[in-house]
C-alpha cells in the first residue's frame, strides 16, 4: 500500500479539521444568532459545496490561485510559488469543500440550546466570549464532535477537488483517493483493493464513533459524572 499517500491524507485531514473548527465555530454561531438577508446568503454559500460537483470548486480555485487573477498574484508573491499543485493549495480546497460538513452540525447544535441559559449567563455578568466557552460549547459538545469527525472523514474521502487542484505529486498532493485511482488505471487491483479497504475502514470507524459516543456522553451526564 502507498504509505506516503496514507500519511499525506491523514496530514491533510487533520490540518483541514483543525483549521475548519477555528472557522466553523464562530461562523456557525453567527449564523444561529444572525437574521435576515445576510444570514440566508451566507448559509447558502456555506451549503454550496454539498450540491456542486467538486470539479467546479476545484476549477475556480485553480484559476483563482493562478497568476491570472490579482489574488493569485498576491498569493504567489506571499508564498513564493503558486498555491495550486502544493499541499497548501490542497488545504485551501479541502477547507472550502468540507465547510458545510463542519458548519451544519454546529448550527443545529447551537440552535437547540435553550436561549434561557444564555440570558441567565448574560444576567450574571458573563462576557459573550465566556458564555461561548462555558455554556454554548459544553452544551453542544456532541455537535462539535460530529462536526470534527464528519470534516475529517469527508476530507479523507475527497477526490474531485484534489484532482483538479493538486494533480498527483507523491508526498505533496497524492492522497489515498488519487492513489486508488492510479492503481486502478494501472490494473493493480490488489493494491487498489487494499487502498479502498483502508478508506472504508477509516470512514466506518469514524461514523461508528459518532453513533457510539454521544449516547454514552449523555448517559454519563445523566448520572452526574460530567460536571
Amino acid at each position, binding site marked *: 500500500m502507498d504509505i506516503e499517500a496514507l500519511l499525506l491524507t491523514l496530514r491533510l485531514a487533520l490540518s483541514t479539521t483543525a483549521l475548519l473548527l477555528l472557522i466553523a465555530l464562530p461562523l456557525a454561531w453567527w449564523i444561529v444568532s444572525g437574521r435576515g438577508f445576510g444570514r440566508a446568503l451566507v448559509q447558502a454559500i456555506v451549503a454550496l459545496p454539498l450540491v456542486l460537483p467538486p470539479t467546479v470548486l476545484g476549477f475556480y480555485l485553480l484559476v483563482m490561485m493562478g497568476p491570472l487573477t490579482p489574488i493569485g498574484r498576491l498569493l504567489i508573491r506571499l508564498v513564493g510559488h503558486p498555491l495550486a499543485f502544493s499541499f497548501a493549495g490542497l488545504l485551501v480546497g479541502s477547507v472550502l469543500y468540507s465547510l458545510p460538513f463542519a458548519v451544519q452540525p454546529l448550527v443545529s447544535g447551537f440552535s437547540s440550546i*435553550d436561549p*434561557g*441559559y444564555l*440570558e*441567565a*449567563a*448574560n*444576567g*450574571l*455578568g*458573563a*462576557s*459573550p466570549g*465566556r458564555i461561548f466557552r*462555558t*455554556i454554548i460549547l*459544553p*452544551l453542544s459538545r456532541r455537535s462539535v464532535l460530529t462536526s470534527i469527525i464528519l470534516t475529517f472523514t469527508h476530507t479523507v474521502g475527497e477526490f474531485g477537488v484534489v484532482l483538479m487542484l493538486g494533480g498527483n505529486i507523491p508526498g505533496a498532493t497524492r492522497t489515498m483517493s488519487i492513489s486508488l485511482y492510479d492503481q486502478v488505471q494501472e490494473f493493480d487491483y490488489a493494491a487498489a483493493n487494499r487502498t479502498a479497504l483502508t478508506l472504508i475502514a477509516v470512514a466506518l470507524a469514524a461514523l461508528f464513533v459518532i453513533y457510539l459516543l454521544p449516547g454514552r456522553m449523555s448517559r454519563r*451526564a*445523566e448520572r*452526574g459524572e*460530567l*460536571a
Partner: protein
Amino acid sequence: MLQHRQGALALDVVFQITQPWTVLFGASGSGKTTVLKAIAGLLTPQRSRIVSHLADEPRILSDSARKVFLPPHLRPVRLGTQAATLFPHKTVRGNVAYGAAQAGPTLVEDALARFGLLERADDLPARLSGGQRQRVSLARAVVAAATLDGQGLLLLDEPFTGLGLAERDRMVLAVTDFLEPTKTPVLSVTHDIGEAFLLAAEVIRIADGRVIEQGPVATVLSAERERLLTQLNG
C-alpha cells in the same frame, strides 16, 4: 425612564430606586419582566435612560438620546432569572459560582451554606427538587451581585416562586443577610401580595406598562390587603 413596545404591551415607565429592597408589583403581562431585562441590558428599549448612582460617579447604563447602550456584562447589574435556567451541565456549586468569576471560593461556600445547599453542592440540577432549584437560582444571583462590592443592583424575577411559605421566609432572610455587608440594593418582581408585605419593601405598582403608584408597601397595597383579609374572613 423606559419606553418600549412589545406586542400588545406599550411600556412607558419612570421611576427611581431609593430603598434597599424595591418590589415591582403587577399582574402578569403588565411589563415587569421587560423592565428588569431592560435594566440588565438583555433587551434594547426603543427609548430609555437608565443611570446608576451607586458608585461615586453616576454611571449611564443606557441613554437612547445619546446612543449609549452598555452591554449586559459591563453593567453594574446582576439579574437572577427563574430556576428553569440553571446550567444543566454544571453542578450546584458550579452554578452558584458562575457569576463570581473573580471572587474567592469562600463567598460561594458561604452562599451554599446559607441557602441550605451544601449537601447537594456536587449534584447536577436535574437531580434537585423544584424548591432546591429555586434556592440554587437565588444563591447564584446573590453571589454574582455580591461581587460588585456594593456598587451594583440585583434584579430578581419572581425569586420565591415554588417555595413553601416557611422556606420562602427563610430564603428572604438568607438573601437580605447575604447582601447586608455590601449593601447591595434589590429590585424584585412579584405578583404576590404576601411577599411584598414580607419584604417590607418599597413598592412600585405597574399596570398595562405604566407606573400607577410608588411608596411603602403598607400604603400602596393596603386596599389589596384589606380585600384579601375580607376574603379570608368571609
